Structures are given as C-alpha cells and as structure tokens.
C-alpha cells in the first residue's frame, strides 16, 4: 500500500499542482466512481469535516456536483449564495468568510467573479480552499474532470490532440484545461475568432487556428466552449448567428471529418450556438459522462485535501 499525498494544501489552480498530483487524483477518482455506482453511494471518510460552499457567482452543475460529492463523503455541508446574503449589505470577502469559519468550518469551496480570489483568501484564513472558478482565471476541478473523461474514453491523455473551441478570452475552463492537458502530455490547440483568442496565448505553448474545419480534422477531442455573453462588455463578433455559422459544430461537419472525434462541453450548453442538438445528443458526445465524472473527481479532491492535517 503506497502512502501518497498531494503536494498542496489548497486546490487553487492547475498551475500549482504537478503531474503526480493529477494522477493521484485520477486514481482516487476511479475508486470513488465505483462507490457512486453502488447501491449505497456513501462512505464515511469525511464525517468529522464541515465544508462551506461559498458561491459569489451563479452555478448549477458545479455547485450541485460539489454538494453531492461532499454528501457522498459524509461531510457536513453549509451553502452560501452571495445574492441572498450580507454581501449585498457591503461586507468584505474576508469578513464574510471569517464569519463562516468562526462557525468551525474546515474547508471552503469558493466561486468568485474575480481572478485570484481563492489565492487571496488562502493567505488570510486557515481553512483549506478549493477553487470552484475564479473570474476568467482557473476552474481546476472542471479541467481535472475533462482530462479524466478523456482518459476514460481514450485510455490515456498523453499524446492526444485536443482542440478548445470558442470564447477562450473569457474562459477559465480553457486556461485550466490547457495547463492540465499539457501536464499530462497532450497537445492543445485553441480555435475561435481572432477577437476571442487572447494575445500572447501562444506563450502557453498552444497552437492557434481560426478555421474550425482544419482544427477538427487535426484533433482527437473537441472541447466546445460557451460564449460567455455575461462577461463580454463589448461586441467581439457581429452576431451570435454569424458566430454559430463560423464556429458552431453541427452533425454535417462532424460526419464529414476524416476521423471520428470525441465532443465535450463543460456546460451550460447554448444549443444551436456553439453546438447543435444532434451533436450534443450524438454518441460521439461525452457531455453527460463529464457530469458523472465530475462528482467522482470532486470527491477525490476533497478526500485528498482533507487527509492533510495542518
């Protein structure tokens, strides 16, 4: 029996963890996947741990997925949504979190609209922090579950070619995915209109392609991102309709490729924009597997972090 642990106390971003950490998380998630497919989907590992889910930004999937993961591990869970709290009365982030921690909370799962919010908090409070998305910066558990889903479908991530299509500029999923896939030895390409590809992204060692068909013919896996209209303060393209015509994936394009690729989407899907319904529901799509794997990955992350004492 190997005794192993993560190299970090918090999961703030993929940037801070190494390949061994990612592989340990995957191996642990394999075990938890087995647990959540049993008649009794629960283990008592975290029964003396309290976790606060603090969401300063809307979320359905991530919040539910974290909450389910916590409950499957028998942790006590408190939920907090900024919209219904004293944040709207002018309380600062540290004050809000310190008040929650005064109620003896061991871990904080936080989503925040500003990049680096998790990092900032980790320097000021004692609890362990899991970043559930900070602005356009990182979304580590999403990247882990995406890579885990690729590994499950294709056997390995190393040597695979993955294209991330869409709004790279506003996407924390894209950054975390690029870092995670590269650490596991995959080749990454980003594809989208020039306005939505950040300047200097080639500094991360990714290929850039503006032609969707060329990108799809190159890849083994296509990760289709949503256009984040809520983060776009100016117009980046003439209309959604034009975007859908240039960068939307439909069944016809998929069937005319020179090979069978896997289609992923981190959700929420805007059907008919980045991906059409018949593609989202096709057998090449692993969107629902991603959601299932999300619970197992989050259980693994929480379990491994909780096992580290101060």
């Amino acid at each position, binding site marked *: 029996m190997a005794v192993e642990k993560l190299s970090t106390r918090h999961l703030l971003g993929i940037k801070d963890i190494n390949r061994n950490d990612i592989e340990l998380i995957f191996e*642990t998630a394999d075990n938890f996947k087995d647990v959540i497919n049993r008649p*009794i989907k629960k283990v008592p590992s975290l029964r003396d741990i309290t976790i606060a889910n603090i969401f300063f930004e809307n979320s359905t999937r991530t919040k539910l997925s974290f909450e389910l993961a916590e409950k499957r591990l028998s942790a006590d869970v408190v939920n907090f949504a900024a919209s219904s709290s004293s944040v709207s009365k002018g309380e600062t982030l540290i004050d809000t979190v310190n008040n929650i921690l005064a109620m003896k909370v061991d871990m904080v799962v936080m989503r925040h609209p500003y990049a680096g919010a998790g990092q900032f908090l980790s320097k000021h409070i004692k609890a362990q922090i899991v970043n559930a998305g900070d602005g356009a910066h990182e979304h580590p558990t999403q990247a882990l579950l995406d890579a885990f889903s690729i590994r499950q479908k294709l056997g390995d991530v190393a040597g695979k070619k993955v294209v991330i299509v869409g709004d790279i500029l506003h996407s924390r999923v894209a950054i975390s995915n690029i870092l995670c896939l590269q650490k596991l030895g995959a080749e990454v390409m980003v594809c989208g209109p020039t306005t939505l590809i950040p300047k200097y992204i080639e500094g991360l060692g990714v290929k850039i392609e503006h032609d969707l068909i060329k990108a799809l013919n190159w890849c083994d896996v296509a990760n289709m991102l949503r256009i984040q209209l809520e983060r776009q303060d100016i117009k980046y393209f003439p209309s959604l309709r034009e975007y859908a015509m240039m960068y939307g994936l439909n069944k016809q394009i998929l069937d005319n490729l020179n090979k069978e690729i896997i289609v992923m989407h981190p959700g929420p899907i805007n059907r008919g924009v980045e991906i059409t319904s018949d593609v989202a529901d096709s057998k090449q799509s692993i969107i629902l597997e991603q959601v299932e794997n999300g619970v197992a990955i989050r259980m693994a992350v929480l379990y491994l972090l909780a096992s580290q004492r101060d």
Partner: protein
Amino acid sequence: MQKRTLLDGQKFQITIKRLCHQLIENHIDFSNTVLIGIQPRGSYFADRVQQELSSILKKANIKKGNLDITFFRDDFRRKDGIVSANSNTIDFIIEGKNVILIDDVLWTGRTIRAAMDALLAYGRPAKVELMVLIDRRFSRQLPIEPDYIGQQVDSLNSQQVRVSWKETEGEDKVILISESNK
C-alpha cells in the same frame, strides 16, 4: 532486526487445508456462501482458500470478491499521509448471503470493524464470519474475535507479523519481526 518463522512449508499447507475443511463443515456446498478478501493482503489469502475449496469440493463456482476498506478507516486525519485505495471487485449480490471475511493478520480489530461497515454498503448479509491466518491475540482494541484461525501468536506491539505468498513473494511463509534494539 530478528526474524522468527511462525509458519512455513508443509505446516502452512496443512493449516490452509484445515481451515478449508472447517469452512466446509459449516457451509457444506457453498451454495449460499461467499468469500470476501480484505484488500490488499487478505485477497491473496482468499484466492488461496478459493482454489483449495474448489479442489476439495470439485466445484468451480465458489464466489469470491475483494473489499477495499480505505474510505471506512477510523484513522483518517489522525495519521500522516493517506493510504491509497485498492479496487473493490464484488460482482455478486451480498444480500442474504453468508459472508466469510478473510484477512491475513488480525491485530487490533480496527480493520475488521471498517470492513464490516464497508461490506454493509453492498447489502445486508445473512451472516458474517471472520477467518484469519494469524491471530495476534491479547492485542485487540475492539470486541472482535475470529471464527476460523490458522494460528494464534502472542506478540508485542513493537513486533510485526508478515505473511508472504507463493504467488506474490515466491514463498508461503509467516514471520515475526522484532526490532532488536528496542
């Protein structure tokens, strides 16, 4: 470091055979009985028992599974580092079955406590029995006693009992290790 052999050679084989005959005495044809080896080292013992039972009973379908107890341990966050988990392979239904839990060494009883919890996640067995190759008696921290025992040993807490198997370590043997400078 001193090593003392507790069990090896022919005596090892006779002990396994004797345990199997004791099992047959209580479970006859194993129609409603399953073997569950506790991961990782109990599963080697369970494999051996399954082979031996099949050859004695001339029956190939004795059910055997492996149970991992990592997530049910009671020393989580009390010990440094975590022990990585092993796989669970139980491809049959436990509900209503007689279950023989199998482990190589019984010491404090905490592993067995965790194993019983883990087992119940798969259903409600009719009966659970415990078989161990080595019982380190007088060292229990919980009220747990085995139903089938290969050999009992008296040992100090500082000593270690190590079971090796032909399949994995090349030899069937049980040794007691003591740190001589303690």
